[in-house]
Each structure stands twice: as structure tokens, then as C-alpha cells.
């Protein structure tokens, strides 16, 4: 197999070109043959113990699932939808779908019924692979609306003993079917893999869409593989590295790390025991590389801040001193002027006493590169991690380029930029200030949506819909979604995200929504962090029964005001928040207020909370809310409350 040898060589050295012929299954086949029984492909914590899965096991399972799918009637190009938490079985099902020449479609685990129905129906999925009872229930209830869906495959039989539907089949049975098919046609699997071509569609990815219905982006094998290759050229990983996979597979970033990069390098993927234990499991593994959206890092910062508030005086002093030194040290490094010796000594001291331990608690003691992307990250958070000595980098990208296109280089980090384009990628700003990208990873178009495709893809350039510019050092600065950019009173453009991320640096604030496009002043609707603020309230012996009541207490308003004043500091007058109110509930993706990746859907909330917005721009000092809330189980609650409007003066 001269063909095979050539591509193995390609995988061995990162510099070599990934050929157009290479597909994900072909690469998988080579890696599995190469590593076999000796290397661990994945690890899953189950029943309290980390259990390894070798490349051999991985390969066998994928092979039988793939053949089983064929036996069940999978044709070339059929869609296989997958839903569930991060588990080896999920990734195996995806790999099997690709190996059997199908197309993978991932759904978010917490998708509501309507979203599941829309995606399954729109993607023409023939199979749905779910984890257990919850997913099976979802699938069964949409079965009648999605006539193209033929089989529902589940993996965990817990709670399913009374389910007798014909369309249900367990993953185990699918593998058994695969084994039978192998008996009949022993060479079928190899033939299937050899048939593929890199330009064929591998994955159909639904973008979360802050404005409209999700759109399905078609990504080819070559898109995915070239993406991973280019990232690895900048920040090479080793095959001995560990990576923890705990973010939804339906997020392109996770696909990029698990498939695009993971398969090429062959590092070990680790799966946490349950979603709730992931932070703990990350610490146990100590990954070498991390990629997460800002909210994960924000959460870590918050954990540290909350622990700080509860710590003893001596510990607080130590921490204060260490962060002061850390910030100073990081700033000196950012400015690339070199660090004087006495600062190095001081930094060495605080690193040994505080920061090393802190990093260990966050599971970051071995992290070589940590990436954040998918949304804007506040400079405060960014500096916080650098003060700890974590090499955190911003990336910029979207589903339509199979992950990322722009990233910081080590030693050349500015916290208000996203860095330089990765190799093989060209980035250009057009006259309107929109960011355009061209690379081998640019997607093939939207599924069943030629209109959107022609709008987004012109002459091979991807029109991102994001506003940005290149700074003097050639770093890309992403401003905001074009439609989200505000025009301030003095005519200046302004990115509300910037202010929102600043506000969110306070541990007491969970979400912030800044309003003020073409208005006289900026105002904000704040959502407090329930667990942190309730802890704070307990210490002050304040009584409350619910989020709603807590959020409307005068003391809490004072607390929030203090946080806003902090964020207002050193901002020009027109960009300061002048009025705010505390929302009576948390913003929630289940209410369509946020996307699944927790981005604010501005147009939607503006419509939904119109009376609040109006009140913020009138002379009233409170707004009366009288609304019905529908819970997931169908119950309704009647909410009557008065939200106060607090002006902030100098």
C-alpha cells in the first residue's frame, strides 16, 4: 500500500502536507494499526476508576458499529445524528458513522425538543445514536414528525426495560450485527475506508445562531484535517499528551481537539465520569492542552474569587501579594521588554508558595497551551490566568472554518486581540470592516440553504459577519458581531460585549446585558450569580426565599452598583453605564435568551424585556413585572415583582 505509507509519513511529521485523498477514517485506520494494543487512545472514569481503551479496542468497536450501521441499511451520505454527554461511545459512534461513509450530525445534550425536531428533520438523519433513556424519550417523541428517522440506537439500557418499540436497538446489538456482516464479507470494512476522498462531506454542523434558526454547515474531511494540522504547526502536541474532553461534541472546538488534532497526534482523550465531576476529573488528569469557551475560564476565576472571600486573613494576604506580583510580572512579559532580576526572584517566590498550588487546584499545572474562543473574553480574566503563569491564548474562528483561523503565538500575546492567522489561512478586512477568511478549512456551504451559502461564501472567501480590524502589529482585533455594534452618543462605535465581559469579572455577576445603541446613555440589566450572592447574603443575615427576591433586595442593588462602578472606571464618559436594574431571573438558554454556547441573543431579549428597556430610558425609578413563567414540566408560575431602576452618578 504505497498510498498508505505516504500518508503515515504525513501524520508523523506535522510539517508534511495532508493530502487531498486523506479522510478521517483513513487516518483513523493508520493510527489504530500503528498504535494497536500498546497505546491508550481514550480513558474514561467509570465506577470511580479510570479505565483505558487502547487503539485496538477503539478500532474494533468502531469497525463493528460501522458494519452494523451498514447492515441496518445505512447508504452512502446518510446522516447519523448523535446526542449525549461526552463518552467514548459517542466518539466511537461518530467515527463509525464516518467509516461507514455516512455523515455525522451532533446535537447539544441540553437541546430542547423543538431544536431536536428541527435538526433531525432538516438534516434528514436516518439514525440517531443516544446515550440512554433521556435521549431515547426525546427521539421517540419526535419520531412521528421526522419520517426519515429509521432507527434509534442507545447505549445505556438503564430504565429502558419496558421499551418495546421496533425502532429501538442497543449499541451492543448493532455491534453484533456488524460481527455477522464481517463473517459474510470480511473485506468490506477496508474497502469502505479506501473508498473515501478528502473532499467528501464528513460532518454536518448546526451553528447556534444568535439571530435565526440554526444553519447546517457542511464540513469535509479535508476541512477538518487541515485545520488540525495548521494548529499543530504552531503549538505542536505530543502523543504522550493528555486532553480532557468534557465540552459538548456539538461544539466545533471540541471536534477540533478530539478529531482534527487528537487523531493526527494520537494523544489520549480523557472522559470525565459525569458532567458534574468534570472539574475534579480535570485535576486528576492534569491535561497538557485545553480548549474551552470563556465561560469555563470565567467559572474557574469565580471559584478562586469565592474561595478567596471565604479564606482566612493570612491566606488572603498571601493571595493578594501573589496576584499583585503575578499581574506585574505578566504585564512586563506582555510588553516584551524583559523582566528585571529582582522581579524574577519575587515571581519565583510567589509561584512556589501560591500560584503553583492554585494552578494545581484548577487542574492546570501541566497545561502547555490553553485556548479560549467562541465568544469574547474580558481582559481581566485574561490577565488573571497569565498572572498565574497559564499560557492562555485567544483564538478566533467559527464552525464555518472547521474551528479556528486566528490564534495568539506564545510570547506574543495581547489581551485585546486574537493574534495572527494560522498557517494556510488568509485574513482580510473589507471596506465595511467585516472579517473575511480564506483557507483550506473553509466549509462547503450550508445544507439545503443555497441562499445563505452565496451570502457567506464569495470567491472562496468566508464572510464572517464579525467586525474587526488589524492593529499595528498585525494582530486581528475582533470587535463584535456586526449587528451588535453600538453607535454611542458621540457617534463612536462601541462593542457591548467588551463592557459585559468586564462586568462579569465580578464574582457576584453571572450575566450582564448592556443596552444603549443610538441612545443618550448606556444602561445595563444585570443577573446576579445566585450561589455567590446567596452566600454573601447569608453572611449578612439577609432573608430571602428565591432568586427573584434576592435579586430585588436593596442591599444586593448596592452590591451590584459597586461592581458596575468598578467596571466603569477608566472608561470614557459616553461609554459608562448610567442606569441599571437587576433582572428577576437568570438568563437561560432554555428560554431562548442565550444560545447553547451562552451568547446573548440581543434582538430576542430586547423584544422580550421591552418594558424594562423602556423603563431604563424614562424617568421612572421602578418597573412593574407581571408575567407567567413556564417550567420545563409544563407548570406555570405567576411572577409579580417591581424591579428598581438605579441611576449611577459620579
Amino acid at each position, binding site marked *: 500500500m504505497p498510498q498508505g505509507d505516504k500518508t503515515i509519513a504525513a501524520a508523523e511529521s506535522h510539517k508534511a502536507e495532508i493530502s487531498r485523498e486523506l479522510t478521517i477514517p483513513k487516518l483513523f485506520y493508520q493510527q489504530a494499526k500503528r498504535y494497536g494494543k500498546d497505546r491508550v487512545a481514550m480513558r474514561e472514569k467509570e465506577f470511580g476508576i479510570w479505565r483505558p481503551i487502547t487503539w485496538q479496542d477503539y478500532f474494533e468497536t468502531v469497525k463493528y458499529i460501522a458494519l452494523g450501521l451498514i447492515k441496518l441499511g445505512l447508504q452512502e451520505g446518510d446522516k447519523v445524528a448523535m446526542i449525549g454527554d461526552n463518552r467514548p461511545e459517542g466518539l466511537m459512534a461518530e467515527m463509525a458513522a464516518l467509516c461507514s461513509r455516512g455523515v455525522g450530525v451532533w446535537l447539544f445534550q441540553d437541546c430542547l425538543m423543538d431544536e431536536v425536531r428541527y435538526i433531525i428533520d432538516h438534516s434528514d438523519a436516518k439514525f440517531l445514536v443516544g446515550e440512554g433513556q433521556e435521549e431515547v424519550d426525546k427521539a421517540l417523541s419526535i419520531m412521528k414528525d421526522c419520517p426519515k428517522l429509521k432507527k434509534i440506537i442507545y447505549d445505556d439500557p*438503564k430504565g429502558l426495560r419496558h421499551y418495546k418499540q421496533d425502532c429501538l436497538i442497543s449499541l451492543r446489538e448493532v455491534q453484533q450485527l456488524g460481527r455477522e456482516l464481517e463473517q459474510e464479507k470480511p473485506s468490506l470494512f477496508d474497502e469502505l475506508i479506501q473508498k473515501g476522498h478528502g473532499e467528501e462531506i464528513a460532518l454536518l454542523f448546526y451553528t447556534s445562531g444568535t439571530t435565526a434558526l440554526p444553519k447546517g454547515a457542511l464540513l469535509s474531511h479535508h476541512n477538518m484535517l487541515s485545520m488540525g494540522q495548521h494548529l499543530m504547526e504552531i503549538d505542536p502536541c505530543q502523543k504522550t499528551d493528555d486532553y480532557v474532553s468534557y465540552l459538548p461534541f456539538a461544539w466545533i472546538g471540541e471536534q477540533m481537539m478530539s478529531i482534527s488534532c487528537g487523531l493526527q497526534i494520537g494523544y489520549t482523550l480523557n472522559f470525565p465520569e459525569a458532567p458534574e465531576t468534570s472539574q475534579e476529573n480535570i485535576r486528576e488528569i492534569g491535561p497538557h492542552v485545553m480548549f474551552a469557551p470563556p465561560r469555563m475560564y470565567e467559572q474557574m476565576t469565580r471559584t478562586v474569587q469565592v474561595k478567596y472571600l471565604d479564606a482566612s486573613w493570612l491566606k488572603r494576604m498571601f493571595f493578594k501579594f501573589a496576584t499583585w506580583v503575578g499581574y506585574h510580572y505578566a504585564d512586563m512579559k506582555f510588553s516584551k521588554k524583559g523582566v528585571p532580576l529582582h522581579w524574577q526572584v519575587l515571581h519565583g517566590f510567589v509561584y512556589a508558595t501560591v500560584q503553583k498550588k492554585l494552578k494545581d487546584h484548577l487542574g492546570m499545572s501541566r497545561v502547555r497551551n490553553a485556548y479560549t474562543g467562541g465568544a469574547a473574553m474580558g481582559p481581566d480574566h485574561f490577565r488573571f490566568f497569565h498572572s498565574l503563569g497559564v499560557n492562555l491564548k485567544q483564538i478566533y474562528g467559527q464552525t464555518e472554518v472547521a474551528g479556528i483561523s486566528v490564534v495568539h503565538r506564545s510570547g506574543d500575546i495581547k489581551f485585546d486581540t486574537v493574534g495572527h492567522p494560522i498557517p494556510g489561512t488568509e485574513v482580510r478586512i473589507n471596506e465595511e470592516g467585516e472579517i473575511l477568511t480564506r483557507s483550506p478549512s473553509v466549509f462547503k456551504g450550508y445544507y439545503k440553504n443555497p441562499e445563505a451559502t452565496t451570502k457567506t461564501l464569495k470567491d472562496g472567501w468566508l464572510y464572517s459577519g464579525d467586525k474587526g480590524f488589524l492593529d499595528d502589529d498585525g494582530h486581528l482585533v475582533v470587535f463584535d458581531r456586526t449587528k451588535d455594534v453600538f453607535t454611542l452618543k458621540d457617534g463612536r462605535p462601541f462593542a457591548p460585549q467588551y463592557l459585559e465581559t468586564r462586568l462579569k469579572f465580578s464574582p457576584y455577576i453571572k450575566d450582564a446585558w448592556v443596552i444603549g445603541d443610538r441612545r443618550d446613555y448606556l444602561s445595563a440589566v444585570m443577573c446576579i450569580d445566585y450561589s455567590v450572592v446567596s452566600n454573601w447574603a447569608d453572611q449578612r443575615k439577609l432573608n430571602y426565599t428565591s432568586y427573584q427576591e434576592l435579586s430585588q433586595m436593596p442591599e444586593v442593588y448596592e452590591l451590584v452598583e459597586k461592581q458596575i462602578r468598578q467596571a466603569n472606571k477608566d472608561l470614557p464618559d459616553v461609554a459608562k453605564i448610567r442606569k441599571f436594574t437587576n433582572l428577576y431571573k437568570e438568563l437561560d438558554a432554555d428560554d431562548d435568551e442565550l444560545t447553547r454556547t451562552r451568547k446573548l441573543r440581543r434582538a430576542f431579549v430586547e423584544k422580550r424585556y421591552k418594558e424594562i428597556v423602556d423603563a431604563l430610558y424614562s424617568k421612572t425609578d421602578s418597573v412593574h413585572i407581571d408575567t407567567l413563567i413556564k417550567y420545563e414540566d409544563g407548570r406555570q408560575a405567576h411572577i409579580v415583582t417591581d424591579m428598581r431602576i438605579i441611576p449611577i452618578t459620579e
Partner: protein
Amino acid sequence: MYFGKVAALAGASLQVRKGEIHSVIGPNGAGKTVMMNCISGLYRPQKGEIRFKGERINEVKPYERAARGMSRTFQKVEVFGGMTVLDNIRLGRHIHMKSGILSGSIYAGKTAREEIENRQFIEEEIIDLLEIEHIRHKPVGMLPYGLQKRVELGRALALKPDLLILDEPLAGLNLEETEDMARFVLDVNEDPRWNITCLLVEHDMGVVMDLSHRIVVLNFGNMIMDGTPQEVQNNPVVIKAYLGEEDLYATRR
């Protein structure tokens, strides 16, 4: 069962069949918990007979009843707040440990094997079933009430009982926790690996009617009737004594 001159429980005859979920309902003070305490051995009834697996157990001590395959949970959670979740559950497993202090300190051969088997049972059957992986090493006292209830159930299950007495397992839980708990009860009752007979005291009528095979109704220490959920719902005396107080399907929904 008398407390002074108060007949807390009199003339009650209850027969729980193997493999069933048998519920006991009644208004407050009807003697439901007294009945459970009599069965588990906390109280000694002055008259009458309690039989378990065909044997009279009136004089058998509570811990001996546990060894014979009986375990229970309490209306108000009785967990060891300072101990971790895992330790609480392990405690329930003690009855099945045969090795003594000496062999335990050497920890080899049979003792080690036994320990591993027990660990496997706790992890695979209980922690996985109750979905409490994330709190394994947390002290129980710091957990919210709903999880404490779950831990208590876990400890009762660690005995691998044949009869599980659940005294108001749903009291004080929110809707989601109620649904979870009801599912766990159904699981241990129906799953062939457990097949536990359950004796359930509960106020949530919706859950009782859905789960139970048979229901006993008590009022002022007397038994009104014993029958299927259908019969209980249609019995006029029962409706008057208890169900009539609220809607027939008074549940938290």
C-alpha cells in the same frame, strides 16, 4: 402497639408479598411510622405477631433483622453528617463483611478480594444507580436535603435487602427530586439484579397510585382496607377518611 393508654396501632394486619411495592397511606397520626418501627424492630409491639420470610421475628433485634434482609430509610434523614457519602454507604455494607480486625490489618487474599467485591457492588450498583458520582467524597452534612435522602437510600440498598422499608422517601423533595426518587424505587423493585420488595409510606398520592401494587389505608391506628390502587380510590370509607381531604389525586403537580 400501645403508648400508655393510646392504641397507636391496633388490629392491623398487613401482608406484603414478595416482589411487590406495598404502600401504607393514612392521615397524620394514623400509625404509619409506628407500623414501620414495629417491623424494623425499633418498637416492640405488646400484642400480635410479626413474621418475616415465614419466621416470627418479634424478639429479633433490629441488627439481626437487618442481617436477615431487611433495611429501611427514615422520615427525617438519619445519616452520619460528618462522614462522606461513600463512608455512609459502606457502613450499610458492613453486615456482609466477614473478615475481622486481624485479617483486615493484613489485607491479603480473601479479605482483599472481599473488599474489592464490595467496592464493585457499591460503585457499580449503588452509586451508578443513584447518580451520586460527583459527591462521593463530600461530607453528607454539607449536602442539600434531596441528596441526603438519596444517600440514605444508598445506605439502605448497600445491605442488599430483600425488604426495603421506605418511610416517606419523597417528603421535602422538589418535583425533579421526587421524579428521580420514584424512578429509583421502581428500578430496585423491577430490575432483576435487585428485585427488592418495598414497603412504602408516602403522602404523595400521585406517586403512591402509580408505583404501588397494593395499598393499605390506616386511620387512628386502625386498618381501613388493603387492596389495589383501583380499589382504594373507589372505596367510600377511604375517600372520607383520607383522600376526601384533598383532591383524589393530590400530588405536587
